[in-house]
Structure formats: structure tokens, C-alpha cells
């Protein structure tokens, strides 16, 4: 799969005549098959980072490389799961998931096989012919994840994917994501507001400063997770009860607070 490298990346948006500095100087190296979560105060630019890798935006300075090559535009090798789901309301669940494969020119039998597999993986059996508006938020996001997964992408980009879901659905989805991620690991860039979510899911957590953002701190969770064997527990609340979890969660919280207190005016 692929590694992602942010090399002294700056990003300024032009709003009218004023420049809006979103990213100050971001340096980050994400290893192949690593699950990285980015947390930070609102507006710090974490979504911008994701969009730079996705190819929806381009850096004002510095470079973003995936697998050694600079990003030139969006594509199925860097699949995106959007916060707003971004499903096509006029397509059925099946058609939504299969579109990427059709674009790749994959033969029908192979396509159907993969889609059926993804549907099973995301517990969507029986809903193939449903339309998005007939599904709950959680199910819609599952379709979105299935759509991304079926592409077998080098990189998975998830932009606050569970932000629009209610609390219970959210925890279910987090547990499912962990299950899938451990089953079939790939490079994941996961943007979130929630510190618990980040600590639970990620191998490493990147803390961003407030706008204009840069990486303040990088925390290695993976070694802790393996050492304390978090994966032994199936339920998220059991993991969140562990001392090691609480320790790192609080640490990150405090770090974020420092950033936030600068923001509250």
C-alpha cells in the first residue's frame, strides 16, 4: 500500500481579497498501513489536511506525497468517506457501492462479487435495492464505507465520518471500524473531534494547533494498545475503562485545552 508524506505544507485560502491561512507548516509522515487520527480544535485545518491528500485542494507551499508521488487530483486510490455521507440519492445501495468499480472498468462478475462482499462486511444484507433516504444515518454511513472499501484503496480518508450520527450508533460504528481495520489493515487518515474515538481507533494520534495549524504532538498509541492488549475487549466501554486508555486520553485532552484556551476570546 502507501505511505503519506506532508513536507512543510502550507495552505492559504483566498476569500475575496483576504488570505485565510489554514495550515502553517505541516510535517507528517504516515507509514504504510498505519492508522493515524488527527485531532485538534475547530477550524485548525485537520479537514484541510485530509482534503490535500484526497486531491480536492492543493498546497500553497510544500508538497503532499502519496507513495512517493505528489497528489494531482482525486481518485479511487485514496478513497474518501465524507461526514455528510455523500451518497447519490437516486441510486440504490448496490449502485452506489458499485459505481467506483464500474469506473475502474472491472468486469461485471468480479464487480458483483466484490460489492456483495462489502455489503456482507458492513452488515447491509437485504438493503441492496433500498434508496439512501430509506436508511438511517448509521446505515448510510455504512454504505459510504462499503463504497470506499470495495475500491481496495491504498489510502482510506475518513473525515469525521461518525460526526453526524447519534451517540449509540457512533459507538457501534467505531467498534465495527476497529474490527475491519484489524482484519484488513491499510493506510488510514482519520479526522475527528472526539479524543476518545481517536485513542480507541488509531495507531498514532496527531494533535494539531489552532489555526493556522501545524502538528503539535504525535502520540504513539499502538505500542500501548498492544502492550495492554486492548483488542482483548470487544466492547468500547471496556476499553475506555482501562487506565492506559484514560491516561492517554487525558493527556491529549490537556494538550487540546491549551490550544482551545487560546481560542476562546
Amino acid at each position, binding site marked *: 500500500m502507501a505511505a503519506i508524506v506532508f513536507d512543510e505544507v502550507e495552505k492559504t485560502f483566498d476569500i475575496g481579497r483576504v488570505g485565510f491561512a489554514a495550515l502553517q507548516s505541516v510535517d507528517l509522515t504516515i507509514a504504510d498501513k498505519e492508522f493515524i487520527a488527527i485531532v485538534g480544535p475547530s477550524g485548525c485545518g485537520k479537514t484541510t489536511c485530509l482534503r490535500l491528500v484526497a486531491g480536492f485542494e492543493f498546497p500553497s507551499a510544500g508538497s503532499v506525497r502519496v507513495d512517493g508521488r505528489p497528489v494531482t487530483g482525486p481518485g479511487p486510490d485514496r478513497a*474518501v468517506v465524507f461526514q455528510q455521507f455523500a451518497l447519490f440519492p437516486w441510486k440504490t445501495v448496490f449502485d452506489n457501492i458499485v459505481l467506483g468499480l464500474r469506473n475502474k472498468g472491472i468486469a461485471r462478475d468480479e464487480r458483483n462479487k466484490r460489492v456483495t462482499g462489502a455489503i456482507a462486511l458492513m452488515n447491509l444484507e437485504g438493503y441492496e435495492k433500498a434508496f439512501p433516504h430509506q436508511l438511517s444515518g448509521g446505515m448510510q454511513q455504512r454504505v459510504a464505507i462499503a463504497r470506499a472499501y470495495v475500491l481496495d484503496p491504498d489510502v482510506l480518508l475518513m473525515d469525521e465520518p461518525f460526526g453526524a450520527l447519534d451517540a449509540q450508533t457512533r459507538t457501534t460504528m467505531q467498534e465495527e471500524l476497529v474490527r475491519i481495520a484489524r482484519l484488513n489493515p491499510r493506510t488510514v487518515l482519520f479526522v475527528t473531534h472526539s479524543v476518545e474515538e481517536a485513542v480507541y481507533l488509531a495507531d498514532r494520534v496527531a494533535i494539531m494547533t489552532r489555526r493556522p495549524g501545524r502538528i503539535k504532538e504525535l502520540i504513539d498509541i499502538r505500542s500501548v494498545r498492544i502492550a495492554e492488549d486492548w483488542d482483548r475487549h470487544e466492547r468500547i466501554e471496556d476499553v475506555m475503562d482501562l487506565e492506559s486508555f484514560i491516561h492517554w486520553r487525558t493527556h491529549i485532552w490537556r494538550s487540546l485545552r491549551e490550544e482551545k484556551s487560546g481560542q476562546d476570546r
Partner: protein
Amino acid sequence: MALAALWYLATIPLGLISPGRFPSPIDVWVAFRQAAFTGYANGLLYQHILYSLRLVIFGFFVAAATGVPLGLLMGWSRRAEALINPVFLFIRPIPPLAWIPLTILWLGIGDAAKIVVIWFAAFVPSVINTLTGVRAVESYVIEAARMLGTPRYRFFKEVLIPAAAPAIFTGLRLSLQASWTTLVAAELVGALYGVGRILNVAQQDIYPGMIFVGMACVAAFGWAMTRLLAACEMRSLPWIQTSRVYS
């Protein structure tokens, strides 16, 4: 129902409204029978109706077939929009009916002139609504399609057009209404056949009953076409569940 009774009473027994001014239900019935079975203004009622309908449908289709693609182009490409906009801005404020004298000059009072006028009337709403519809598509829908590597043709066919479809249908509805309105007006100004012609002749003949028949036709078909289009919309957009209060 109560209204119909009121109408009848006011005109015949009570003579509240003079029959020279407004027809009684009996007058209307007589006129209707005449138009339907004996003929009026050189034709039977159904012939006039068919004549008008033919022109409206043809004109509407040409306008939609030219307007929607142009709207798509202008909505998608800012360059195309900037290029075409000045001409559009120039044409737009001119009321469709204002084209009638010019088209009569160019093409007389035959079918061709009517179609041209209808085109001018129906073209604009199609373009504008399609354009707006394309612009209104949420950016994340487009981004998702790009992320999935959707090639251009498929993108238009399976993403952009369905996304803009509700707005496009609104434009079509307005175009259809404009087509019908404009045709009736054009026929009123000068025509040999058609619903407008009936109205024209009836007015000159001072035949209130027939006037009523003509207007009832205008209303009935205006309503019917709107309904038909709404049904088409329901059929083609199964994923929309919004209901319209007043269309």
C-alpha cells in the same frame, strides 16, 4: 357546487347579471354543444384543441431540448456562462408576448411563427432553472464522484443530471406553462385555428357563452398539462418524497 348553483341563479331567474355581459350556465352549454358538434370559427372544438395542443407540445419540446443542455453547459462551465450570459441577459427581460409582432413580421401568422414565439417563451425558464439546479448540487456529491474516478460522460449522465433533476423539472413545468400561455396569446393576435382563435372570434361576435367555453378550455388544458408533468416527475424521480403545496 354551491358556486355553480349561485351562478345559475344569478343569471337566469334573478337576472342579476345581464346575459350580454356574462353567460348563464345554459348559454355556456349551448355554446359548448355548438362548438363541439356543429363547429365554430371554421372547425369543431376538438379540432381547435388538437391544433393548439400540437403546437404547444412541439414548441415545448424544442425549447426544452435546446434549453436544458444549454443550462447544463452554462451551469457546469463558468466560461460558457460568462460567454453566453450577455446575450441571455439581453433576451431575458423581453416578455415572450413581445416577440409576437416580430415573428409575425418574419413568418406571418402560420404555424412557424407560433413555434418561434413559444420557443422564446419556453426556452428561458428551462435554461435558468437547469443552470441554478446544477449550481446547487452540493460540492461533496461532486467530490465523491470525482473521488470514485467517474469519467466525464458517466458523470453527467449518472451524477450531475440526476442531482439537478428536481430543478430541471421545475424549469420544465414553467416552460410548459409559458408555452401554453404564449400560444393562446399568439392565437389571439392572429391565427386561423386554435383555442385562441375561438376566443377571438367569440369576442368579435359578442358571444359570451362561447367566450366561456374558450376560457374553460384554456384553464382545463393548463391544469391538465401541469398535472401530467407532475406525474412524469413522480415517475422519474422515485427518490424524492417532498410534496408541493402550490405548484
